[in-house]
């Protein structure tokens, strides 16, 4: 561990571990981390090399009468610590070199991709003749909105410039040539801006006969729909054979319940019948009169 210091990328979960030092009776960070790098077991070594720890260890051994040989295992002498430091420096350098390599690789990959894109752009430009680059680029549409990227590059004729991430608003500027199909000249007829009658409400062209047929058949169709829904309901439900067309008289509801009456129920019923017959007679009389007048 001392000879080969190991430097790795910092990972929060793992590298924040603490260890408990019995002698000093406190928790110490196991690994040393700074920024994005961590020295494995750096904290442990650092602590064990410190003077404070040495004193505490001596105390501990004296109090607990432990074997002196073991004590050495729990301490790290300054020379050892120096050795560790030098190996650490070497490890850091090696790590930096590796990082640089990775970055160079990524850069070269990006350059390759850019190259291939440029070649494709040139291939597109060669067959094109007219100024309608919109059509060409739309036929050649690669991922998403790169249409606008190509049109901008052809317009400005930039060579190796890397315009891969153009702002999204450019899609509109590239396509602002909406196809113009001519002024709609409708003299005398009017249009939506003048508030003329909309074409779908104009009924001049429709045949009169067809309109007649459509009316009732649609209603029939709706009725048929309702009937089909009724058929789906269980046939022995309550009221399935209810005759909706039967007439009802006044007596079907027990609506003769007087509130402030004393006496028997049949009396209130008798009263109700008497009153309703009176009303019927008076209604008949009023109806008869106009009839007689007509005659």
């Amino acid at each position, binding site marked *: 561990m001392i000879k080969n210091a190991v430097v790795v990328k910092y990972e929060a979960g793992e590298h924040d571990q603490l260890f408990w030092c019995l002698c000093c009776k406190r928790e110490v960070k196991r690994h040393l981390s700074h920024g994005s790098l961590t020295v494995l077991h750096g904290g442990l070594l650092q602590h064990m090399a410190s003077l404070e720890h040495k004193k505490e260890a001596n105390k501990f051994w004296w109090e607990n009468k432990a074997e002196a040989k073991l004590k050495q295992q729990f301490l790290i002498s300054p020379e050892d610590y120096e050795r560790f430091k030098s190996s650490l420096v070497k490890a850091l350098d090696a790590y930096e070199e590796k990082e640089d390599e990775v970055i160079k690789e990524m850069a070269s990959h990006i350059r390759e991709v850019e190259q291939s894109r440029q070649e494709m752009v040139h291939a597109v430009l060669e067959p094109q003749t007219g100024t309608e680059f919109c059509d060409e680029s739309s036929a050649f549409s690669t991922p998403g909105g790169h249409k606008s990227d190509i049109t901008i590059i052809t317009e400005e004729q930039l060579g190796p410039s890397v315009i891969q991430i153009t702002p999204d608003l450019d899609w509109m500027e590239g396509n602002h040539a909406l196809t113009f199909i001519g002024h*709609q000249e409708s003299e005398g007829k009017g249009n939506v801006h003048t508030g003329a009658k909309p074409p779908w409400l104009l009924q001049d062209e429709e045949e009169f006969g067809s309109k007649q047929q459509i009316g009732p058949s649609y209603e029939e169709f709706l009725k048929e729909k309702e009937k089909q829904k009724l058929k789906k309901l269980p046939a022995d439900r309550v009221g399935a054979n209810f005759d909706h067309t039967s007439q009802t008289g006044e007596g079907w509801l027990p609506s003769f319940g007087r509130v402030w009456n004393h006496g028997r129920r049949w009396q209130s019923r008798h009263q109700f019948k008497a009153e309703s017959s009176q009303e019927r007679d008076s209604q008949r009389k009023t109806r008869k009169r106009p009839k007689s007048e007509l005659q």
Partner: protein
Amino acid sequence: MSFLLPKLTSKKEVDQAIKSVAEKVLVLRFGKDDDPVCLQLDDILAKTSHDLSKMAAIYLVDVNKVPVYTQYFDISYIPSTVFFFNGQHMKVDYGSPDHTKFVGSFKTKQDFIDLIEVIYRGAMRGKLIVQSPIDPKNVPKYDLLYQGI
């Protein structure tokens, strides 16, 4: 893309659609199937039509086949999209000079979905003109030329 959406080819069919689509926003795209901006718009319409099926019905109309409607709506730029609800023409203020139709394509599917939702809610509340939720910089710019109106 345009073969995924239903098309209307005569004035009668358009009338029928306007009168019969009930309780849903009717979207009529006026344009030509091979125009590049129309293709873009048709792509967005096709992709969203299933998700919006409960709120909207989308149809494509070729401007050459229905000259009556092309003249009535004063369609000079294609694509133009007109919205109806229960037979009533819905106007939307997009920040552009013409509120009767949407000219051009939408930038994202979400813009179109938001617009349909706003139109639907406005129509449910009885509004005949609604405010577009689309960011004005995402609305295509064009010059509106009045012809002696």
